[in-house]
């Protein structure tokens, strides 16, 4: 189970890479494995404002539809359009080519985000 040390995580199995005031986000390796083959991704529109916990994107596997919850608050400034043609990138490279969206961060309180160790412990307890 891959849990890169330089990322932050949520209990809903999203990851966040914060670079200055921009965050890139996606689903963790655990999430993609639990979901199975992803066959469809509904990306958030650029310009959308999201709050922490908003269902702002959808991933669909063969058997199920799953909401993706915003791990961070802000404005969507980019989304990974490649996932429209190749949704399987979420499975194949969840932390790289499988990224879902980029957000210009608005909130300052990111205490709900956990580091890799804490996320790893969470997975052990599941």
């Amino acid at each position: 189970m891959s849990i890169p040390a330089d990322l932050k995580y949520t209990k809903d199995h999203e990851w966040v890479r914060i670079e200055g005031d921009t965050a890139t986000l996606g689903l963790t390796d655990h999430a993609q494995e639990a979901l199975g083959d992803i066959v469809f991704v509904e990306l958030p529109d650029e310009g959308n404002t999201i709050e922490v916990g908003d269902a702002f994107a959808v991933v669909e596997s063969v058997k199920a539809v799953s909401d993706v919850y915003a791990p961070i608050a802000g404005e969507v400034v980019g989304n990974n359009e490649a996932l429209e043609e190749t949704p399987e990138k979420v499975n194949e490279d969840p932390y790289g080519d499988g990224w879902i969206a980029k957000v210009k961060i608005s909130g300052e309180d990111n205490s709900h985000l956990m580091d890799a160790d804490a996320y790893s412990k969470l997975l052990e307890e599941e």
Partner: protein
Amino acid sequence: MSAASDSPLARTPLFDEHIRLKGKMVPFAGFDMPVQYPLGALKEYQAVRDGNAGIFDISHMGQVRIKGADALAFLQYLTTNDVSKLVDGQVQYAALLNEQGTFIDDITTYRISENEYYLCINAANRHKDVAHLKEHAVDFDVTVSDESDDTVLLALQGAESQKLLQKLTDTNLDNVGYYRFALIRLNGADAIVSRTGYTGEDGFEIYIHNSDATAIWQLLENSGAVPIGLAARDMLRSEMGYALYGHEINDRVTPVEARLMWITKLDKGNFIGKEAVVTRRTEGPRQRLVFLKLTARGIPREHYKVVADGKEIGEVTSGMHSPLAGCGVAIAYVEPEYAAEGDLAIEIRGKPVPAERTTSPFVRSNVRK
């Protein structure tokens, strides 16, 4: 190998194999069944479609033997299709209807001889079907034996199927044509093997005794057959537009609604439900099954609404993203006025996604005719 609704899940004789192969087990029709293996549903589906072969444990399904001097007359009365058209070694798709003309189940009927037939029935309907058959058997010189608990049913589907299965038998499988079967020895064990299936690819359904199952499963898997779970199985049959009980057929629709009049022979004599079907045909269906292809991005799923003229006019019964068709495909019931006319859309998360009518199968069938 039977289950009641409040007991723990039943297991097929191949349960240990599914665990060994790291299948993800889920409840289905009272059984603990593999929904997929580590390969994943999509790659399992591709193994069957792309020229390889997949092996499915479908032992949860039921098998019933009908024997006696009145076997033919009994099945003519109980099933919708014309059983008198069968010769020894032939299979026929049919339905069991109730007096309202709606579905009790869809089945396949195998004629072993004039006085002996073998039925394959759905797992979810097994006890209901057997009770129904036994109830009516009192009026005929016939015995109804539920052999489900002693029978393992495997499906081997995909272009490589015959090559793999041939290694286990001296019977030349070229002689088992489409919707034909033979009683053969497979790995030395008694087996019924039919060239039938639920995937749209060339392949076989294999009926064997419980005690012979593991050896045959392992031989096929070791020679390259890919274990296939229920998720991929559902993808394969949906792409073919094949009905699944509880989705396209149920006790609220007749063959007129379900587009199954082709297995309903109104000229063969009386059968249970015939009068109701004739009436429904005259009155017109209350809803109509349609096959839809999405013309924009989206995956249609069971229960999603079909909309037209700003209102809900139907519901999806089965839907998926079809890798081969490259778009969403759906089987749906719509109000009869919309069966052939009107612009349709499927509502996905509140938004109408346009769909056009098409015919089944959604992708090319490769069954060997």
